[in-house]
């Protein structure tokens, strides 16, 4: 029995090492691909702005198509990076400690200020009037949750829309909610939205590229924190995602 266990442990170690090497390779390659894509994006931009001379209508149309293809490929690389790290993030050891969710939320909003600015979207953080108790959380993992929810809210909002983030204290928990004015989740999506690789048809219409891994990851992380996650989505109200995290005692 013992030699068999040792053998299995050796195999698991080998597999983990291989997995880490593969993940690093993907990460490095993605960085290099993104660098080339940046160059392509900026050169096309220069042509389209007439920096390199006047274009014919046909040339302009073709360059616009090239820009769209480049943007799609860029999104694929971003999704690849996200998928690459997801299993890692979900399965890693969690270091729970007292955490200031107000500060973490402000931090995340700052990180997305560029994307929001580009799309003309305003992110409004409605902080509670009284002090918010610290939550018991793993900072790095919870940041992944906030980044995914903010990224989705920005990506699926209409241009010049508003996103509202609210923190609320409930029974021994802090409730975080993020409301956007974007797409409405389909009836099918209402039961499947947190499934791995599922993408709602309304989301696909708005953003062709996506892996369907983001909300799956978010749910897993919230559950590892002993919290809950759910959403409300309606024609006139937009979509709101909620999650709860226990306060630190």
């Amino acid at each position, binding site marked *: 029995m013992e030699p068999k266990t040792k053998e299995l442990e050796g195999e698991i170690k080998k597999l983990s090492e291989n997995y880490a090497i593969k993940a690093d390779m993907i990460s490095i390659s993605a*960085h290099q691909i993104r660098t080339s894509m*940046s160059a392509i994006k*900026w050169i096309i*931009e220069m042509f389209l702005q007439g920096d390199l001379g006047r274009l014919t209508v046909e040339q302009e149309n073709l360059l616009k198509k090239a820009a769209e293809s480049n943007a799609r490929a860029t999104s694929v*690389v*971003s999704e690849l*990076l996200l998928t690459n790290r997801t299993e890692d993030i979900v399965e890693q050891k969690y270091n729970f400690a007292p955490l200031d969710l107000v500060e973490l939320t402000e931090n995340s909003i700052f990180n997305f200020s*560029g994307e929001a*600015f580009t799309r003309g979207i305003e992110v409004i953080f409605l902080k509670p009037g009284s002090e918010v108790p610290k939550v018991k959380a793993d900072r*790095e993992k919870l940041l992944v949750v906030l980044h995914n929810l903010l990224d989705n809210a920005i990506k699926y909002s209409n241009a010049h829309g508003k996103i509202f983030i609210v923190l609320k204290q409930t029974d021994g928990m802090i409730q975080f909610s993020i409301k956007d004015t974007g797409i409405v989740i389909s009836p099918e999506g209402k039961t499947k939205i947190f499934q791995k690789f599922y993408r709602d048809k309304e989301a696909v219409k708005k953003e062709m590229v996506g892996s369907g891994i983001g909300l799956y990851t978010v749910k897993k992380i919230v559950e590892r924190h002993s919290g809950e996650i759910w959403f409300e989505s309606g024609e006139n109200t937009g979509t709101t995602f909620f999650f709860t995290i226990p306060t630190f005692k």
Partner: protein
Amino acid sequence: MTKSILIIEDDDFLAGLEATKLKKKGYEIFTAPNSVEAFKIIDAGTKLDLILLDLLLPDVDGFMILEKIRQNKNMLTIPVIVFSNLSEDKDIQRVNKLGVSDFMIKSNFTLDELAEKVKDLIGE
């Protein structure tokens, strides 16, 4: 008075495109492909209004450069935009702790959007 920007970027071609766009917007541009060249410019007391910083560089990485910049008492408050193709949460957290004005993923932004961000931070 003309505002000055230091671009720390090891890819000559990308650095050239960034510099061309920002020069066109009226900024004075200095470029450095690595930390040695960057600190030659900084330590010479060059008047700088903003630093555009790549993270993956051949000698010392952008994180170390940022750390060193923030240790220089004349550079404590200079706006720094991290302009990189790295995008992992751990990278964002690390630079945020060191104090940056923004973190932009190169492949997600046009140069016009970069110029807008610069204008937002230091004006024209």
